[in-house]
């Protein structure tokens, strides 16, 4: 058994802040013509000075609280000096703790996935660089590179964990929790392409640490980690030492590969940014943040259990994704039947979610034509015994694609429960005649009754109430 240690660096854009970290440009750079979302400040023109966006400090403070981190008395910004074409100033404004704790949060812990936890080393505010665009799509085959500074200066919060993960699947659970938290805080729209990114570091058996960069989706983090762990184990088994290095995730081939350019040990020559005075946080600010922080997933889960009487499991599934939890509560606004609705969402609706499409479109219900009003309508039909559960499922499977209201479809299908006992008895009678062998078996083995029920449902085209039909079958088995 090998010991695996995984640590994470998660970058989350504060899209909710509206403007960039150090200027008044919009933080929404997506879909804009290259180099149009810039000003002298974020373009790093000579003579400009950074202006700290107060809102971003509030957002970062909310994340700090939500991840159980401590605040320092005051925060500072540092320059991280290195040359790269996507950096307008050739330094990045970030936070740094080597000369005293001045990043917005440190020393936190986050519980996830039923009783597991991971320690948070540090939370810091920093600016996103611009984007490099390769003419042919890849660095290797392009003669030149284009630079788009629209993204330069977009506020980022970096969350750095301790190497507290041993399993890639736990990493995925942790990342889902983080996503749910920042969504609940309203600081980041995680559905936007590239709004949350993750780098990971992996070591096995106390060996050298390997950094994996360029992982573009959270789903790929798990794959990248599995690949990297296997690679390191294979090397260990052949007694080859794992080198300390940075590897890039090749999205197309689903492997990690050596960086094309050797990244030597860089000296970033950090020093405090002279143009931004230290920001005192103060108890007033902290209590303001505590008051303004929205409901977090864990609190929401408890509320779902106490207010709606949901089970811990169902509540957990719902709050695991803010979109799902919001969908649930929106449905309750229309029709208040919490348990019924929660069941429909968690056990039935979830099965229609197309994972691939969900990843691509960053939306849970991508491709499904369904809203809270549909589920509310469906639950009402069932609650009022207008249709039975099996029919409801059938209806759901159709409307997720058509977007028709359940009650309308039910009407159109003329399906209302077969409540005429004689019609049902007739159906049972004909099944007993057709399936005589099965009937014999059913007398010895009670489970076979379900087979007969299936046949009854089939010839009634699902219109029979299965509960009543089963009772009838069992009664008839004893009679004959």
């Amino acid at each position, binding site marked *: 058994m090998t010991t695996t240690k995984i640590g994470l660096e998660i970058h989350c854009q504060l899209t909710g802040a509206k403007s960039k970290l150090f200027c008044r440009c919009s933080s929404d750079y997506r879909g804009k013509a290259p180099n149009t979302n810039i000003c*002298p400040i974020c*373009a*790093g*023109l*000579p*003579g*400009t*000075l*950074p*202006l*700290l966006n107060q809102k971003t400090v509030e957002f970062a403070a909310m994340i700090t609280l939500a991840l159980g981190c401590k605040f320092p008395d005051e925060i500072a910004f540092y*320059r991280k*000096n290195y*040359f790269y*074409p996507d950096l*307008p*100033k*050739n*330094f990045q404004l970030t936070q740094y703790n080597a*000369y005293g704790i001045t990043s917005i949060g440190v020393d936190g812990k986050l519980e996830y996935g039923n009783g597991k936890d991971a320690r948070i080393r540090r939370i810091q505010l920093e600016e996103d660089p611009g984007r490099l665009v390769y003419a042919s799509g890849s660095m290797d085959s392009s003669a*030149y*590179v284009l*630079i788009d500074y629209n993204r330069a200066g977009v506020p980022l919060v970096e969350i750095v964990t301790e190497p507290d993960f041993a399993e890639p699947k736990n990493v995925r659970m942790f990342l889902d929790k983080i996503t749910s938290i920042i969504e609940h805080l309203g600081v980041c729209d995680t559905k936007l392409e590239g709004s949350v990114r993750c780098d990971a570091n992996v070591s096995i058996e106390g060996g050298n640490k390997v950094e994996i960069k360029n992982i573009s989706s959270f789903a790929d983090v798990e794959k990248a980690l599995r690949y990297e762990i296997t690679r390191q184990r294979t090397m260990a088994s052949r007694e080859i030492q794992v080198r300390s290095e940075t590897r890039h995730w090749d999205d197309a081939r689903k492997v990690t590969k050596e960086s094309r350019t050797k990244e030597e040990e860089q*000296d970033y*020559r*950090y*020093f405090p940014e*002279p*143009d*931004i*005075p230290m920001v005192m946080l103060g108890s007033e600010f902290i209590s303001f943040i505590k008051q303004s922080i929205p409901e977090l997933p864990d609190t929401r889960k408890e509320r779902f259990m106490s207010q709606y009487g949901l089970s811990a499991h169902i509540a957990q599934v719902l709050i695991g994704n803010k979109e799902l939890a919001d969908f649930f509560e929106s449905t309750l606004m229309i029709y208040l039947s919490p348990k019924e609705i929660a069941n429909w969402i968690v056990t039935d609706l979830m099965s229609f979610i197309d994972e691939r499409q969900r990843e691509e479109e960053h939306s849970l219900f991508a491709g499904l034509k369904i809203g809270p009003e549909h589920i509310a309508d469906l639950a009402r039909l069932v609650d009022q015994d207008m249709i039975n559960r099996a029919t409801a499922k059938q209806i759901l499977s159709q409307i997720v694609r058509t977007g028709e209201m359940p009650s309308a479809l039910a009407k159109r299908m003329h399906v209302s429960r077969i409540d005429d006992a004689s019609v049902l008895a007739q159906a049972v009678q004909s099944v007993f005649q057709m399936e005589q062998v099965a009937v014999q078996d059913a007398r010895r083995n009670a489970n076979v009754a379900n087979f007969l029920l299936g046949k009854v449902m089939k010839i009634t085209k699902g219109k029979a109430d299965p509960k009543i039909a089963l009772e009838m079958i069992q009664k008839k088995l004893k009679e004959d």
Partner: protein
Amino acid sequence: MPVYTLEVEQVVQGIKNREFSAEEYISQLFERIEKVERKLNAFVTLNKKGGLERARRLDKKIRDGEQSGPLAGIALSIKDNICTKGMKTTCASKMLESFVPAYDATVIKRLMAAGAIIIGKANLDEFAMGSTTEFSRHGPTRNPWDISRVSGGSSGGSAASVAALECAASLGSDTGGSVRCPASFCSVVGLKPTYGLVSRFGLVSYANSLEQIGPIGRTVSDVVSILNVIVGFDENDHTTTNSSKLTYSLRERNGLRVGLIREFTEGADPRVIKIIYKAADTLEKQGCKCEEVSLPSVQYALASYYTIATAEASSNLARYDNIRYGFDMNPEGYEWNSYFARARSNFGDEAKRRIIVGSYVLSSGYYGKYYLKAHQARSLLKHEMETLFKKYDVLIGPTMPILPFKLGEKIDDPLKMYLVDIDTVVANLTAMPAISVPAGFADGLPVGLQIMADQFAEQTMLDVAYLFEQAAKVQRSPEL
């Protein structure tokens, strides 16, 4: 007497009362510039057409009876490291050879709103790094009192243009004495404000934590006129002080307590010392109480200054990679790291020297040894100064320990060159205001009296400067 010899207030009144037109005034100045500029080389760019147009518009406004601003018609030269929208701002560097700012510095906006006319951009040492204006891509600016000698620096063009009657006043920048040194060498008045009094937005950064923009004029009154327009909070500069509108005036005061800094006179040229002692006598006669005082930690000032200044400079100058603006260079055939290196080889020697030194003092392992030490020395010096200001209203000494020297005399010996800044860097390290006022001549060469005051005590400093100026009556403009 030609109008270009008049003081700021006289010009403003003359134009306002239509004794002469702004156009006549500006035309006369350009005739003067044509006559003397080839001897001095004080300007990098002249704005004749724009300046005359603005003058004509002002004349029309006055004829129409419209209100004119406090600096209406005043011709200014602006150091070429202060951004002027639509007018080249080169920092006397190849790296910004063709850089035309897209915005005006805050000080420029304020001067323009007050009616001033920018007639050109003044020469300087490349990126304001130097004490002679010899490190300019456009060649050195010569001293109007003896054109075989240096004008001082780095705002040499500003001081020389004012002394030579090429403009009424100028804006320089002072990081370690760059306003006061050339003011002293050219026998004009140069003021470095308290750090945070004047906005740096639009000043191309050399060392952010030390520098301030400051006015240069032929009289204390002229300097006050400019200062009153540029001071005060700027929402674009976090380091400006958030105070209500400040206004300075010329006041007759006596009984002020003056400390003469022993360490400043000890190392100075005896010819300079003589004039400074005479200046102290003059102040005594005017009712001040003068005493010799000691500032022991001044011994750390230069080392501290050059460590902090080069550290900040190495990072500030990183953005000049010729990707977004700069000079004409074909990137074809370069990998980007080699392109950076090739483009950046176009910095001048002094800029390169400071980038290298600054990178060194910030490199990992040396930060504590140099950068932090420098900051400790800075705090110590500040503390000593604050203690002295409990006893004295102002501290005086020579601005420069030596007389203006010959061109080329020190250019190959950086350490000798750095030593001449010994008396000026104290004000920058302590964030305190300082002014250089003409004190007399030795062997026909100007000597400046430096007057320093506590943070934000500009008024007291100006009181002493005005008192001295009125009593000493030192010649301001040379025959050319």
